[in-house]
C-alpha cells in the first residue's frame, strides 16, 4: 500500500501557494495540510494528485488569535495545538471538546484544523462544530480572499464551497456564551463516529434564549437540528421536552456496515438528547 508518484512543493506564503495551485491546475494539484486524511487515501490509491502543495512552511497559517470577540484559527494550526490552546478554551470550548474526539493524539499531532474542515468528511467532528458556532471560513484564491459562512460551506460528502485554485486559510469563530457540549458515538475509541452532536445553549434564567445544534454523521454534510432548536428555544426544558426535541428532526442517515438507517437514527436521537442535556447542564452551571 504505497502512494502513487506526485510532484511536490512547499511554498512559504499563501500567495505563493495560490500561484502554485494555479500553475499546476492541469496536473490535479492539491493542497497538503497535515495529510491525515489525504495520505491514507493516497496509500489506498483512492486519491492520485499529480502535484501536492504542502502548506507546512506557510507560517501565517499556523497562528491562533482573536479579533474582538472572534476567535481566529489559521488553517494549518495542528489539532493538538488548538485542543490545548487557552484561546480556544475561552473562545470556543465546544471546539476544544470536539478536538478531543478527533481520532487519537498521534493523528491530532499532524492533522490540522483547516485540513479537517476542508476535507469535509460527513462523519467528522470539526465541520459540525463550525456549523453549530456559525463560524466563517476564509479562503484565498487568485482573486483574493473571500469569506464563506459555515452554513454555505459544506456542499456534500467531501465537497465544499472552496473553488479550484483556492485555499482555506482561516477559521473565524464568533464567541458564544452559554453551555457548549460535544458528544459522539463511535464503535471503538477514536474511530469514525456514527453520530456527533455539537450543541450550544444560552439561557436567560431557566429559559432557553438561543440554541444551536449541529449533527455529524446523519447526512452527506453536517446538518443543523433545526426542529430541535425550534422546539427548545423560548422554553424551560424538562426531561420530556428534551426527549421530544431530540425526536423532532426528520433524520434518515444512510446505513453502512456499522449500522443501518434505523439504528443510526436511534443512536442519533439518543446522542442528540445527551448533547442537549449536557449543554443545558453546563449553561445552568455557568449562571
Amino acid at each position, binding site marked *: 500500500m*504505497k502512494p502513487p508518484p506526485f510532484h511536490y512543493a512547499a511554498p512559504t506564503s499563501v500567495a505563493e501557494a495560490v500561484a502554485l495551485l494555479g500553475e499546476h491546475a492541469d496536473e490535479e494539484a492539491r493542497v497538503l495540510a497535515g*495529510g491525515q486524511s489525504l*495520505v491514507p487515501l493516497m496509500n489506498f490509491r483512492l486519491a492520485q494528485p499529480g502535484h501536492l502543495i504542502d502548506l507546512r512552511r506557510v507560517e501565517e497559517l499556523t497562528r491562533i488569535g482573536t479579533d474582538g470577540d472572534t476567535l481566529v484559527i489559521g488553517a494549518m494550526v495542528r489539532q493538538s495545538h488548538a485542543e490545548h490552546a487557552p484561546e480556544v478554551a475561552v473562545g470556543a470550548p465546544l471546539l476544544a471538546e470536539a478536538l478531543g474526539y478527533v*481520532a487519537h*493524539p*498521534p*493523528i491530532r499531532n*499532524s492533522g490540522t484544523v483547516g485540513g479537517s474542515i476542508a476535507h469535509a468528511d460527513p462523519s467528522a467532528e470539526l465541520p459540525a462544530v463550525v456549523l453549530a458556532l456559525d463560524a466563517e471560513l476564509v479562503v484565498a484564491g487568485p482573486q483574493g480572499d473571500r469569506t464563506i459562512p459555515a452554513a454555505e460551506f459544506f456542499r456534500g460528502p467531501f465537497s465544499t464551497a472552496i473553488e479550484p485554485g483556492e485555499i482555506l486559510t482561516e477559521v473565524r469563530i464568533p464567541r458564544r456564551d452559554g453551555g457548549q457540549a460535544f458528544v459522539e458515538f463511535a464503535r471503538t475509541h477514536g474511530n469514525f463516529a456514527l453520530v456527533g452532536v455539537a450543541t450550544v445553549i444560552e439561557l436567560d434564567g431557566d429559559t432557553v434564549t438561543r440554541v444551536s445544534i449541529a449533527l455529524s454523521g446523519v447526512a452527506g454534510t453536517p446538518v443543523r437540528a433545526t426542529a430541535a432548536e425550534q422546539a427548545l428555544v423560548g422554553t424551560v426544558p424538562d426531561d420530556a421536552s428534551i426527549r421530544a426535541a431530540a425526536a423532532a428532526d426528520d433524520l434518515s442517515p444512510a446505513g453502512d456496515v456499522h449500522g443501518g438507517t434505523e439504528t443510526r437514527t436511534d443512536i442519533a436521537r439518543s446522542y442528540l438528547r445527551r448533547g442537549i442535556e449536557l449543554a443545558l447542564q453546563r449553561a445552568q452551571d455557568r449562571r
Partner: protein
Amino acid sequence: MSPVDKHDVTLTVNGRTSTVTVEPRKLLVDVLREDLGLTGTHIGCEHGVCGTCTVLRDGASIRSCTTFAVQVDGCEIRTVEGLAKGAELHPLQDEFWDKQGLQCGYCTPGMLMRACEIVETNPDVTAAEVREGIASNICRCTGYQFITEAVCAAAVRMKAGNP
C-alpha cells in the same frame, strides 16, 4: 505525468543528522527503514489506524506510515532505537520487559514511543490516562493490561529520576 524530481530531506534521527534524497511520495517509515536502516519502526496497516509505525516528531507522536518524509524535512525524529543508552534500557523498555508488556514484539516500538510521549508530557499519569493514551495503538497480543502496568511503573521511576 512528467518525471518526478527527488527531494533532499534532512532529518535528525535519534540525535544524528542525515540527508537523504528521495521521491516526495516516500513515506517516513520507509525512509527510516530503507534509507537509514532503522528497521525498529514497523509497518502495520499503512492507513494510520494501528499505530505500529509511531515515532516522535519534535517530541510529538505521529504515524510514520501516513507522513511523507518531505513533510518532516528539518525535524527531529525519535525512534525505538534511540531509547536505550548502550547496554542500559530506558525505564519504559525495562518495565515492558519486567511486566511482560509485550508478546510478539511487533507493535512494541510504536507502543514504546507513544508511551514515551505520554510519560514525558504527563509525569503524573494515571492508569486510566495511560489506557486512553495508548488506545491510539493496537496491540493484538497483550490485551493492554501489562502494557498499562509497565507504563505506570516507568512513569514513577522517571519522575523519581531513577531511570
